[in-house]
């Protein structure tokens, strides 16, 4: 439950030094593209921030987002921010179950009405309420209930943000993202399958500091993390510009670290911070590990014409089409040629020689 202790007190209680705290503020400011002058402001605001209540709802999802957020290799200040938040309801992480779990959610909603944060992962079945229920409550109903008193809604993961895997063709549950159900609350999409943990902590820190959500792009994603494409920040970009491509996952090109475009990399369409923040505490990221980007932070990435086919390559068999078309063209052209010749020879046959005498006679 939300308590009176401030974030500064809580961090000191856990043995975090002032220096460590300021380092975290500086790192968060730089990651969120805020000017250095904001660091002391952030530190002061975070120091005084009260413990906010957070309700985490999981719908049609795989728990990968939760795994991503909780599997940091070493305890970090991001973890401490998470620890600081009063996570009042979360299927996977809470100890309580059954009625006690639902009671915790209702209590948190009641006590913090209008001020709690609502995090959603997973899409919502918008066809048959029975497709996904929790404690006998349909996903749709639970989201509407819980969003009513929320200060803001954070859609974590591509399923909650854009429908994700459940929304992929043929979309049997008619899965929809949170944004199609909740339209009257500040909403932020933190997309990715899963999203980068630092993005979540950055968004939460921003909310704690400024009391509002950060600047968003056209798809309601925080611009600081989703402002640039993977392609434009990719360290393999120079190979793309030169036309040097890996053909398979283990050829010479792959060993030399050439561009993975021919192997279907979706970097050109994907906006995310993988190329800069990286994964596993900055160790690596998919393209550095030798696999093209799947485009997981973009809408409909499951249905983008195949993971191993580049975005601009035709999906149809164009060579075959061109072949058939050429045969048809030759046949039609020959037919037209024959018809034109007939027309010419018919005209020649009808041609009458007219002499000056004929003309004089007729006039």
């Amino acid at each position, binding site marked *: 439950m939300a308590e009176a202790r401030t974030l500064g007190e809580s961090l000191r209680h856990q043995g975090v030094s002032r220096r460590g705290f300021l380092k975290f503020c500086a790192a968060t400011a730089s990651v969120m593209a805020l000017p250095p002058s904001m660091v002391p402001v952030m530190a002061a605001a975070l120091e005084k921030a009260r413990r906010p209540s957070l309700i985490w709802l999981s719908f049609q999802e795989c728990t990968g987002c939760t795994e991503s957020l909780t599997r940091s290799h070493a305890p970090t200040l991001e973890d401490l921010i998470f620890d600081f938040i009063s996570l009042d309801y979360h299927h996977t992480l809470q100890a309580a179950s059954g009625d006690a779990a639902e009671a915790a959610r209702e209590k948190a909603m009641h006590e913090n009405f209008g001020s709690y944060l609502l995090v959603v992962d997973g899409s919502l079945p918008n066809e048959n309420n029975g497709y996904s229920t929790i404690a006998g409550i349909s996903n749709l109903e639970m989201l509407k209930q819980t969003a009513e008193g929320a200060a803001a809604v954070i859609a974590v993961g591509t399923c909650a943000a854009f429908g994700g895997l459940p929304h992929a063709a043929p979309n049997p549950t008619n899965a929809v993202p949170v944004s199609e159900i909740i339209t009257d609350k500040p909403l932020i999409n933190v997309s990715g399958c899963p999203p980068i943990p630092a993005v979540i902590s950055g968004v939460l820190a921003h909310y704690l500091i400024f009391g509002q959500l950060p600047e968003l*792009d*056209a*798809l309601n994603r925080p611009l600081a993390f989703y402002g640039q*494409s993977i392609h*434009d920040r990719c360290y393999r970009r120079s190979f*793309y*510009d*030169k*036309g040097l*491509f890996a053909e398979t996952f283990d050829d010479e090109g792959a060993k030399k670290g050439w561009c993975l*475009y*021919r192997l279907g990399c979706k970097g*050109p*369409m994907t906006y995310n911070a993988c190329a800069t923040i990286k994964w596993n505490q900055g160790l690596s990221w998919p393209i550095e590990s030798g696999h093209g980007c799947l485009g997981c932070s*973009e*809408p*409909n990435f499951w*249905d*983008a*014409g195949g993971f191993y086919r*580049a*975005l*601009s*390559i*035709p*999906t*149809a068999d*164009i*060579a075959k*089409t*061109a072949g*058939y*078309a*050429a045969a*048809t*063209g*030759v046949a*039609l*052209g*020959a037919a*037209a*040629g*024959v018809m*034109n*010749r007939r027309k*010419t020879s018919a005209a020649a046959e009808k041609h009458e020689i007219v002499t000056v005498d004929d003309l004089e006679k007729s006039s």
Partner: protein
Amino acid sequence: MNSTMDFLLWVRGPAFDVAVAIFVIGVLVRLLEIFLLGRRPYLSEARGSQLGPGLKTVATRFLAESGTLKRAAFTVIGGYIFHLGFFIALLLFVPHIELIHATFGIEWPGMPTPVIDAITVVTLVALIGLLIHRLAHPVLRFLSGFEDYLVWALTFLPLLTGYLAFHRLVNPYPLALGIHILSVEILLILFPFTKLMHTFTAFVARWYNGAMAGRRGVES
């Protein structure tokens, strides 16, 4: 069609198929019609060969005649710039070569993308300049019909949309790429039925001119 990704998949799939089919059939029918019309039989004795002068004229007509260059320098130079720029962007931009490689299995070295980027800007400027010239010049304007403006747009739009997609000036990206591919498909579909056929027929006309002159033993 409820998402930009569906749109992109449509232009990459069925629409691309249809556009390529119309382009190939249309071009072949029109060229065969010209070839099968044949030439009038020569009744005179040949004074020279057709092959050498024919090929020579195909090559020499790449250069503007000096009188034309002096009279219409802007049109000639602007014409060179946008023709060269268009073909460089079309054939030497790496993702275009990738498309041809994935489709027909043939490839060649491309130019660095920043160079193509600069060439595209020059080409767009040249095309805009030529359009303004066409509208501002009373004689050119009088001679221009709907089709002239249509083929200008068909040439301009693939370059413009490609530039917008490359620089991500239209969002989301699948929409930008889809519009670019669609503009190329419109170009392919209308190509055989407009003045754009000169891409092929110019060489046929040059050949006939050179070969005829060669047979008569005169310079073309």
